């Protein structure tokens, strides 16, 4: 028997595979395709204090080995999240992480405070990749001081495990990751999407209504792995790897680079069962290679 469990701060996950925010709805949308209790955990779609309609269409496009999205944080808002979405996860034996965002630093504190007493929420992931109007539209997470402030204010509101989801669109991600750690984050997840765009040459229109969007999928895997590896070198808290994970081999790659768990995003769109297939693949890989605990893989890269 292989022990697949891992620990993110005080959270024990039955295995290191979670589904990423925005790619698994509020947790029950893929019930027809998989048993969510088999997952290490679910990160729900980013919620904000008030509901949001999201951006005009088109919102998605395909790119070489990837996709662009500019959904615009369309979500049901905190009230409906608490009244409709969370209760639907009541008796599910897996970890539920609520992902939250705000328009201002204060709003991060408010949304955390609004949901933090829910026993069904096992951890809170802070999405700092939203545009900060005060900073000229650059994401909160591109500035270490602002990131620190967002984390600090959220930390004041909750004792639940607090995970900061980093944006990769920065010069030095270790600086931001350290700021998150020093302000009280229990873990960081790395990474959100890269900024990208595309143009339909037949109509001459941008592929996305908002022109710029977020790139995800296998094309970004090498970048995600590099960022995760870089922050693993400087942090003491656990890192969750995200970006382009499609197979159990990809998951092993991230674990060897030093992350404690992974999230899969775009994969679910292509193969709703893909996250479970990764878990099965990990188990088999460990069995075959005599690895009794998946934790033993973490950081196991051999430097040549």
């Amino acid at each position, binding site marked *: 028997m292989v022990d697949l469990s891992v620990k993110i701060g005080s959270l024990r996950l039955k295995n290191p595979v979670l589904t990423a925010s*925005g*790619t*698994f*709805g509020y947790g029950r*949308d*893929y019930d*027809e*395709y998989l048993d969510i209790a088999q997952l290490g955990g679910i990160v729900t779609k980013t919620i904000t204090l008030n509901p949001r*309609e*999201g951006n*005009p*269409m*088109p*919102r*998605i*496009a*395909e790119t*070489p*080995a*990837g*996709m662009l*999205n500019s*959904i615009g944080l*369309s979500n049901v808002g905190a009230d409906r999240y608490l009244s409709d979405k969370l209760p639907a996860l009541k008796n599910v034996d897996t970890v539920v992480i609520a992902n939250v965002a705000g328009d201002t630093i204060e709003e991060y504190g408010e949304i955390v405070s609004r949901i933090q007493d829910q026993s069904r929420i096992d951890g809170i992931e802070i999405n700092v990749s939203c545009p900060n109007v005060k900073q000229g539209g650059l994401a909160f997470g591109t500035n270490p001081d602002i990131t620190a402030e967002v984390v600090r204010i959220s930390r004041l509101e909750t004792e639940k495990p607090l995970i900061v989801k980093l944006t990769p669109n920065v010069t030095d991600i270790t600086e931001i990751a350290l700021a998150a750690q020093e302000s009280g984050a229990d873990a960081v997840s790395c990474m959100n999407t890269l900024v990208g765009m595309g143009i339909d040459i037949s109509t001459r229109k941008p592929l996305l209504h908002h022109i710029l969007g977020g790139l995800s*999928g*296998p094309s970004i895997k090498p970048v995600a792995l590099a960022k995760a590896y870089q922050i693993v070198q400087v942090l003491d808290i656990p890192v969750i790897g995200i970006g382009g994970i*499609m197979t159990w081999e990809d998951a092993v790659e991230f674990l060897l680079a030093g992350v404690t768990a992974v999230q899969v995003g*775009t994969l*679910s*769109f*292509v*193969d*709703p*069962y893909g996250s479970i297939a990764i878990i099965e693949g990990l188990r088999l890989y460990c069995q075959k290679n005599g690895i009794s605990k998946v934790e033993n893989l973490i950081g196991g890269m051999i430097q040549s």
Partner: protein
Amino acid sequence: MIHICEITEQHSITNNIYRMRLKAPMIASSAKPGQFIHIKVRTGIDPLLRRPFSIHRIDPGNEEIILLYRKAGRGTSILSQMSPGDSLDLMGPLGQGFDLQTSFDHAIIVAGGMGSAPVFFLIDELLKAKKKITLLWGVRAGEEIFNENEIRKQGIELKVATEDASKGHCGFVTDLLSEYLSKNITKNTYSGFVCGPECMIHEVQKIVESVDFRWQASLEARMACGVGVCLGCAVLIRERGFQMVCKDGPVFDLREVQFNG
């Protein structure tokens, strides 16, 4: 549900329109007109996303579904190169089909381009329900019209418009609709159905503004998940806000659709 389905037949109808049969017992026995399937045209990462296709027809006896598709880009050209015996990974049936429960006697169907794909399944069901049918069918070139004899033999009133004047009316299918409405419609025992490109559907919306029976439209949008999760395929629906074409549609009440511009 995900199904691995064998291709049992593949034919080209024109230069770039193909008809494909797939062994898919579960879908063939449960699908409704207007629903679609979501195909991974090949394993691997190129192309990455699935491709949505309406169910063109079902052949329950053979447990088969039939697709009708145009070679439009990378995904469909890979599809077009596949052969009987090859397998496809597909999800479906997805989405809400046409609502045929409302009371009407006479279906008036407007089909444009590949919008004809779902229309044949719709017609098959309407015939079972003994409805009168008028089909207004617009294409670029006459060669894209197929099954003409079968259609007429079934007692369906068929009017064709071609952009290149090679068959029927020269111009748009919306011309046929305006003409039809101006002549025929008096009472509201009709029900309207429209499938095709967005600009055509938008045009139909304007034309039918004053007629007082229900119109259902089947919309298209770029899709990732196909099941309402990614929120990528939104369409603005009056009073309901953004709805997902994949999950809440692809069929919507035509009058409630808010097109951009």
